[in-house]
């Protein structure tokens, strides 16, 4: 019989890094040490632990990483709790890639970029940001506004401090919700900070975070003079198949798993707000 898209391959977790109290980053390769498949930034993969369940995760690592894939995963449900309790060497199953990904070779190319993330929302953006770093000549200035509840909840803090901040024409703006000992950076919510930084409106913006953050940040961007056609985001929905057949992630005439998860804000306006 021919290959069935729903039957996964085996992957091995070769590294687990604790990013925050509830986020860990898992490195996954095939048993013979290769990447399970190639992907584009913003695409997703189905990870599963037999007997526990299967769930869709954004691929956090950049496609330019030729050695492995990484997934930054927040502990919040059944599968994620199990993953948080496992150890290096654990096998999982993996299938993908799913979804459209960010238009890095089209709409983003040659543009000045603005990335805005809240909390675990940085995970899907990390893939694009590192892709842009690896193809630096293809993109202009990069601004990154990233906020989380506290200093300890900033995902990939080490990479941000040691690598992103030192990249040419990269401006990194970090913020946390409340003052904290040992933090001398900005304090306040992301939407307000975006307005305060007053980023030029020639940027193509990419938004990812909790729905409430997306809502108010979009409002802030529009107030700054951005158009909805300049702003991209990536959606989250419950998924089972990943290939537009199981019906679960159907919103309007779109399937988040295959027509998304990346949408432009003006495209979302044409969809029922059921996401």
């Amino acid at each position, binding site marked *: *019989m*021919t*290959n*069935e*898209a*729903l*039957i*996964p*391959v*085996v992957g091995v977790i070769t590294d687990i890094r604790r990013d925050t109290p509830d986020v860990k980053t898992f490195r996954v390769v095939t048993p013979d040490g290769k990447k399970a498949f190639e992907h584009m930034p913003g695409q997703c993969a189905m990870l599963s632990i*037999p*007997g*526990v*369940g*299967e769930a869709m995760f954004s691929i956090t690592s950049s496609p330019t990483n030729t050695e492995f894939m990484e997934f930054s995963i927040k502990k*919040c*449900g*059944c599968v*994620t709790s199990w993953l948080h309790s*496992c*150890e290096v*060497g*654990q*096998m*999982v*199953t993996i299938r993908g890639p799913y979804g459209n990904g960010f238009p890095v070779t089209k709409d983003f190319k040659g543009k000045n970029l603005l990335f805005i993330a809240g909390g675990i929302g940085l995970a899907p953006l990390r893939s694009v940001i590192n892709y842009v770093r690896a193809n630096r000549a293809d993109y202009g200035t990069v601004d990154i506004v990233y906020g989380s509840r506290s200093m300890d909840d900033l995902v990939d803090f080490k990479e941000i401090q040691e690598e992103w901040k030192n990249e040419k024409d990269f401006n990194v703006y970090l913020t946390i919700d409340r003052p904290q000992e040992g933090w001398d950076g900005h304090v306040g919510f992301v939407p307000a900070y975006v307005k305060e930084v007053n980023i030029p409106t020639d940027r193509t913006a990419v938004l990812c975070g909790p729905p409430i953050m997306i809502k108010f940040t979009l409002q802030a961007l529009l107030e700054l003079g951005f158009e909805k056609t300049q702003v991209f985001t990536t959606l*989250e*929905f*419950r998924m*089972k*198949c990943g*290939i*537009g*057949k*199981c*019906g*679960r992630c*159907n*919103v*309007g*005439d779109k399937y988040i798993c295959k027509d998304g998860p990346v949408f432009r804000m003006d495209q979302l306006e*044409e969809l*029922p707000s*059921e*996401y």
Partner: protein
Amino acid sequence: MKKIALSNIDLLYKEIAGAQELYLPVKVAGATNFKKFEDGVEVDIKSLQTVKSAKDLFFPQSEDMMEFKTSGKSIEVIDARKKAEPFVLFGVRGCDLKSFEVLDKVFLAEPVDTMYQAKREAVTVVTLACNNPETSCFCKVFGVDASNPKGDVQATIVSDEMHFEALTEKGEKLLSSLKCLEDCEGKGVEEEKAQIKEKIDALPFVNLDLTNFKGENLMELFNRPEWEELSKACLGCGTCTFVCPTCQCFDIRDFQTNAGVKRFRCWDSCMYSEFTKMAAENPRKNQMQRYRQRFMHKLCYFPSNNDGEYGCVGCGRCVKKCPQSLNIVKVIKKLGGNK
């Protein structure tokens, strides 16, 4: 054309079943459904409609996909897809045949669903014209001609005989292999079809107007205030989705066995609150939203993605089975009206 006297039809079933598996309407404990033909079963070929549709044969209610052997930290994936053997599906009505086309658009779209595809390729479908359509039937609204249901072989009952016409190579092969059939001219078939058409035109729901249901009206239809009233009595039981020939939503689940873990898929329903529930939140929080999703999908989202083809075939099962008397006819009347 070929024919057989209804009094001898058991010979036909036996001859087909002698060569390959035969599925046809069988009555068990008062309910008629597509079941495998075996000696002693009560075939109910004249019953207009099975309780569940024939989609079971291609998209079973539950189907094993793979198995996992786990030991310590390691996992082995074992393909558990079953090979599909050729089979005959006999007595399919026009609406159910049309539903296969709807399901094809989902499961045979790239990437192809190989489990569904294998069974679709293995089947020879013998349809049966509907001599006595019921008041709950509205297949004509969706372009189905119940007097001419098509398929590989099309059968028509004319008084006490069943006439057969092969429409495909597969159908030709089946008919020519059957020794119990006798050649005929198909006398009375056309007259019977004309009578069926007349009966269909006199049915109460044939004038439902679908013109409003199209992609361009997506947001307008979605925001209609009538959804509240239409969905008020919905219990969220999911009966409509389980008897529906075109509902194709599924779940993928794991089952622990003594030997390891089995991963299977099974029918699911967008009418259930768990359907879209995530760890953090649920985008469809109330029954009105779930009810609206089901009908919007069939009448607007599906045609928007499939060149205007609707995700309903007018079989009327939801009309008969909803415990609260809610159904797609009421939705069409309210939001589309009559012609």
